[in-house]
């Protein structure tokens, strides 16, 4: 029984962290068909923003979160305007450009902060004991944040005019343009929103991790696995895919402790298996139809 509780709790926490990262990535792909490989690099920049505000300036972590989301959103919009937009029609070029951007951001951070491992304080220190399992408050916060983000995004996309414009653009860019929607502006806005979500994910997740300039690569692979598993561009798919992989990771750690390092590869194998059976991912088609 104890083992089962451990697996459930750990799976929920792992899944929430993955979901937070994957939703923003999925959003920009769904709307603008931009595969932003720099998504987790923005998450890394957000982490360093929080470090600067909390550790170097001595301000509260909430200010760090706000600063991180603002800086990263702005950076994302500038990136779209000057780097992605001019080459947007060439998907391969966008892909390579965003990888290059991620590496540049890594080198810049490395230049300023060196490769020293750093950390930031948790928004809420301490832990709670839930069904005999010790869970950090920060982990509970990430679980709540993942749910809240999904709900807020759903409301934004379904109930607001801007959301309607984003959905229209996602369905058919040319028709949306003919209807008077400034498609480029919508894409830039979505990019800002997507990257802002990466910043927010950074703010929530970073106290649970270690800051270093290469910290974007690990989450990038898992995030890609999540969105491909869930169906590229499907928010619902990303959310569910994140929890599937989160539980897969937990199962590996608890059932095969000697192979705990295999939790990433096992999650990737699950993704491949699902893709072999359903190449569009779990929710690739159904979500397209919903929109």
């Amino acid at each position: 029984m104890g083992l089962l509780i451990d697996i459930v709790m750990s799976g929920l926490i792992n899944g929430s962290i993955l979901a937070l990262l994957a939703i923003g990535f999925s959003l920009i792909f769904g709307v603008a068909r931009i595969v932003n490989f720099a998504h987790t690099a923005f998450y890394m920049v957000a982490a360093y923003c929080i470090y600067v505000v909390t550790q170097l300036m001595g301000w509260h972590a909430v200010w760090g979160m706000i600063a991180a989301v603002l800086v990263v959103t702005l950076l994302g919009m500038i990136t779209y305007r000057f780097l992605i937009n001019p080459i947007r029609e060439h998907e391969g070029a966008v892909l390579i450009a965003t990888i290059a951007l991620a590496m540049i951001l890594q080198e810049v951070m490395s230049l300023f902060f060196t490769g020293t491992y750093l950390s930031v304080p948790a928004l809420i220190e301490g832990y709670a004991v839930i069904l005999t399992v010790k869970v950090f408050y920060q982990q509970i916060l990430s679980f709540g944040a993942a749910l809240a983000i999904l709900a807020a995004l759903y409301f934004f996309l379904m109930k607001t005019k801007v959301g309607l414009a984003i959905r229209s653009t996602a369905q058919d860019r040319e028709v949306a343009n003919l209807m008077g929607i400034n498609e480029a502006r919508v894409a830039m806005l979505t990019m800002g929103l997507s990257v802002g979500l990466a910043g927010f994910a950074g703010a929530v997740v970073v106290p649970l991790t270690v800051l270093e300039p290469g910290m974007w690569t690990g989450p990038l692979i898992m995030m890609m696995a999540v969105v491909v598993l869930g169906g590229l561009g499907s928010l619902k798919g990303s959310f569910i895919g994140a929890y599937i992989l989160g539980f897969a990771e937990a199962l590996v750690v608890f059932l095969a402790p000697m192979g705990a390092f295999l939790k990433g590869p096992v999650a990737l194998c699950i993704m491949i298996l699902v893709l072999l059976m359903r190449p569009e991912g779990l929710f690739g088609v159904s979500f397209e139809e919903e929109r």
Partner: protein
Amino acid sequence: MKMRFAVLWSILLAALLVVSMSFPAGAQGAKTIKIGVIGPMKFVQGTGHWNGALMAADEINAKGGIQVGDEKMKIELVQADSNEFNSVTDATNAMERLVTRDKVDFVVGGFRSEAVFPMQDIAMEHKRIFIDCGASHNELCSRVAQNYDKYKYFFRESPFNSSMLARTSFIHLAYVADIMKKELNIPKIKVAVVAEKAMWADAFTKTAEMVVTQQGMELAGIWRPSAVATDVSAELSAIQRSGAHIIFTIFSSSVGIPFARQAGELKIPAVQVGINVEAQKDSFWQATQGKGDYAFTSSTFCRGVENNGNTKAFVEGYVKRFGETPSYTAATYGAIKYGLVPSIEKTGTLDPDKIVAFLENYEHKNADSTIKYMKDSEGKPLHDITWGPGYATGIAVQWQNGKQVGVWPYKWKLTPNSPAVTYKGIVPYKIPPWVIEKYKK
């Protein structure tokens, strides 16, 4: 006409500038001895390499330099960023540049064994003495015995080899287990082995599995997280359920930070012993947000601990100059000051063969131990350092109330009849209060 002359002069000036820039800086001044310092310069390990070497060079140059025969020569350091954490190719390129373009006379540094092997090959091909101040793989020195003519220019300075590193860690494990037994009346200690997934840790883990039971303890389980795992709360939860009293850590990568931080924050009722390279650094306290208290690790230097008569001056000087405790890669200091310089002065030459012949038999004190180069079972030179009381033993440190203190060797006897060894400045080991609370009857 005037215009043509101006253009001509400009071209000539530019050509002169290019030519002057093409030659290494040292070639322009007085004769110097060039020492290449190679390491991952954007990381603490590389900074340690450089800072140690810088301190040694400055001290020697302040005294006029090195006496080579009839002339005094100053040391000129050449920095090479090996970037070996990210790319072994970068590391080999950096070594190639040092020996071919910068034409250094000697090289000190190196960190990851995977990178030091090819770096070693390059240095040996060019007959450059290369003193390793970071990699511990046994094979690096076995090569010297196996192919002396080719590899004789390689020496190890720090740390001692992997086998001895493991042996010392098991001594630490027994030491802490004994304290746990006595203070908490635990009849049979249960040990959880947590080793990062890395080549160097594989053999270590297998040995740990045997040694734990040989030492009369029970193995609670083995966990192998990724070396760069950022969340180990699931592993910690499983370890707590296993009822382990001691967590034997085998970490050299970043996983040591989240492990110590999360174990401390979750108040896991088990003490941590073993190797956690991150816990050797001053930055550990910040990196764990102060949750890494009571973490224990093998180490080389600690403020206030004197391994030998040279340690205090070095550690205090280093802290004063660089504001942090030297890492074991700062052994470049000893490699230059106590190894290379006396060898050059005694032989009166820069001839690598003559220096090798002298250095391999030269027993000397560096900043943390007495260096005596070993020979293998057939009497062939290994150029590896001797382990044991009176030679290199290393120390163990523990974080106590936010401060790193030395806790081993403390009344340590290698055999029951050996004299007890306690280095100056070593204090008793402390069991974390939440562990005492859990087990104290």
